[in-house]
């Protein structure tokens, strides 16, 4: 019980620190968002004079008001946060940040999430198998998949698009669904789901290809070291079936360190995959993040970082509890 209370207290403090940092970081960035927006307005309005009124309105809107003390801004920030108000985006004015994130989050969770799970499962299963058959030709899989991982992701995605979407025309070039067949956006129909699945295939595939090598390598090496443990030798001496030794004795224990990595990877799923979303014009959080940083959109930036922070903390917390459950040593020394 004390273990769990201590963990919860630790996470509350971390949460407070993360949210406070989230307040500070955008304010430490160079550049002035109001100047950026006024500059853009000026160029966009083709020389029309910006009235004093408009300029004042923009300074008021973009919160760069130097007259309000930082402490008051900080308190106001907490107040808004607790009432669920993430503010209004300045790059996509006047859209609320919560709406933008709400629209992007499902696509990120599902496409990047599914790709992460598939990559992990493939890496663990193949890694266990390669480790089990160590010293055979299967060992070549390790450098091969590591090589795939070391290819710059951007380049890999472009090559796959050029080959499968542009040359062969088997797969779509962009989007999360067929925008020509569904100009009004997502709808509840079988056709739409098929379209969405078809459009998610290549982006997800590129993520799997570029990340499976890491899981595979880690699992294979753990598998090899686990197989030299005494209890595996004992199991062999008892005359258990090799498949049982492989699955229940070696692989099960070898997978534990990878699980920890997996929980962190899952936490970061919400950060999306900036490059994937850019190459495939796929909706998602990563794009909002990069657009907000480029446009110095403080509200959107804070909203996105908040969501990422909360998810990573939640994933770690769950994994902590889970570890405490499966490994008593963690509880007594934690």
């Amino acid at each position, binding site marked *: 019980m004390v273990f769990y209370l201590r963990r919860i207290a630790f996470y509350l403090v971390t949460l407070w620190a993360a949210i406070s940092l989230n307040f500070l970081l955008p304010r430490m960035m*160079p550049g*002035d968002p109001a*100047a*950026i927006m006024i*500059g853009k*307005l*000026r160029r*966009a*309005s083709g*020389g*029309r*004079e*910006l*009235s004093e009124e408009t300029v004042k309105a923009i300074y008021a809107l973009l919160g760069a008001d130097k007259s309000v003390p930082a402490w008051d801004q900080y308190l106001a920030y907490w107040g808004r946060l607790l009432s669920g108000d993430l503010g209004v985006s300045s*790059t996509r004015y006047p859209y609320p940040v919560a*709406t*933008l994130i*709400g*629209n*992007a*989050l*499902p*696509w990120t969770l*599902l496409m990047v999430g*599914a790709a992460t*799970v598939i990559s992990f499962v493939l890496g663990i299963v193949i890694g266990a198998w390669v480790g089990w058959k160590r010293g055979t030709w299967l060992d070549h899989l390790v450098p091969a998949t590591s090589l795939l991982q070391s290819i710059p992701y951007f380049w890999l995605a472009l090559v796959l*698009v050029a080959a499968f*979407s*542009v040359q062969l*025309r*088997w*797969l779509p*070039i*962009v989007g*999360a*669904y067929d*925008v*020509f*067949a*569904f*100009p*009004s*956006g*997502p709808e*509840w129909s079988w056709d739409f*789901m*098929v379209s*969405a*699945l*078809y459009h998610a*295939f290549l982006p*997800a595939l590129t993520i799997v290809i570029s990340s499976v090598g890491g899981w595979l390598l880690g699992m294979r090496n753990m598998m090899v070291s686990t197989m030299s443990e005494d209890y595996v030798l004992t199991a062999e001496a008892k005359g258990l079936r090799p498949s049982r030794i492989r699955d229940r004795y070696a692989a099960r224990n070898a997978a534990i360190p990878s699980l920890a990595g997996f929980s962190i990877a899952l936490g970061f799923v919400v950060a999306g995959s900036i490059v994937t979303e*850019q*190459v495939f*014009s796929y*909706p998602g959080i990563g*794009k909002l993040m990069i657009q907000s*940083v*480029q*446009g110095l959109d403080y509200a959107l930036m804070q909203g996105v970082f908040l969501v990422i922070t909360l998810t990573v903390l939640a994933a770690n917390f769950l994994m902590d509890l889970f570890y405490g459950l499966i490994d008593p040593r963690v509880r007594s020394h934690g």
Partner: protein
Amino acid sequence: MKTIPVGVAAAAVAISLVLTACTATPPAPTASSSGTTAPKASVLRVWAGSSTPITVDFNPFHVDTALFGTYGPIYEPLFFYNQLSADPPTPMLGETFAYSADGRTVTIKLKPNLKWSDGEPLTADDVVFTLGYGPNKSDKLTSVTATDATTVGAKYSTPQFTNESQLLGATMIVPKHVWSKVANYMKETNPKPVGSGAYVVKTTSDASYTLTANADYRDGPPPISDVQYLGLDSNQSGQDMLTTGQIDWTGMFVANPDTVTGDGAIATMNAQQDPTVIVTCSDAAKGCKGAQTDPAVRQALNAAIDRPALAEKAWAGLVGEANPAFVLLPRDQQWLSDPALAPSPQSPNAAQAQQILEAAGYAKDAKGFYAKDGKEVDLDLFSPDGWTDYNDAAKLIAEEAGKAGVKVTARTVSEAEYWTPVTNGDFQLAMYGLTQSLVADPFSNYDQYFYGKSTAKVGDAPTRGQNYARYANGVVDAAVEAAGATNDPAAKKAEYAKIQAQIAKDLPYIPVVLNASQAFFNTKGFTGWPTNDNLYADPLPYLSVAPAIVLLHLKPVS
């Protein structure tokens, strides 16, 4: 508003993705699946440069965030000014207009029997309302009245000759019966716009928006029944969609346009207009710091750079020749006072650069760079990271300047770190793009970028204009004011001659090239596009108003 359906649908998708990831059979190649479900050739698909997610906004007062179709296809100005020609403007909502001799009274006659897309009549009252509404308000407008249902008279306190294209060609007329009820125009996204143009909004999503023909359009509904604007996040995607026939019209930089136009379906046009320059913080009296405040240093840079090599290496040879008089040739030929000013030097001349510097009292130091009073000329030239043409050009400029003995260091900064110093004057040299005057008269270039009242001291952003070079020259200021008050071409040209002589010598903006403006369009599915012989409008889909003129000229090929 779309959160729930997206979430639920995507949840179902992901579950099936997990279950069937490797066995999912794609239904059919995209081209044919979309082609068979929507074979109507009269749907024109456009990428005007929007990125995803598309946030629905058809508010014409949101000049920065409104979607492209807002200006022209949905809302219209009174007249259309073709930025590629010196011809008189084409009537849109207006029929005729007249200026009084002193330029302070403008009388506008509207076409008869105009209608809004909701069926209400469009009258002089709407124009009067528009001119006095929101950002259109001007303290120089003393009165605006509707003398009858189709005549508007506007009186100003100053001559409005130079403001003609702004007033008549860039002010979108909005319906009084709608906008008088809008509480705060800045917060309005106007998802169901009532306009006067040939198109109305059909449907929107966060990946695209579709306009459809306005059945009650004054000249009859346009032949292209639907226009779908897409959101894409990279030029590569745009190019791929173009080559695979999935989009029909776009405007973007393609380094090797032959790969796109190769099979004959897609045609291209490249009418360069906007000058790419090195903007310098030029006036020490305004607070600028660095050797570039000396005109001799700017002149040396101007002579040292190799423009053809820059055009080839940084822009794949797709750019035009810039000139230090900042007129667009051949459009503005009549305003060029001295033929020697055009174009900017097209071959590097290190010897001349050195001569200029030595005449101004500079001498080479031990490292081979010029210095004056023991202080080495050491200039900083920056550009936004990822704007590869600017980044490459800056590197080449630094190299060439170095050869002439002028030390220039090129560096890249994030976009956020680019705009603030440029607007506030906290810089030495920056790669920058000017917007060419939209009518066949360079006045707005001089007024926006060179006029003393368009600047501010270092540390402040200018409240009017974009004179980020902090350029201040009494001769130029007087000439800009005099040119703005006259409508006599000869008198205007005399004033422009004074301006051109000063700015070509002072070089607060060192002209580099005229930026590429490539448009690509599908000539197999649609006819009626502008050609070099018939440039009735600029075929760039991201412009204001011109795309609507192009859409009205297009016909689907059956």
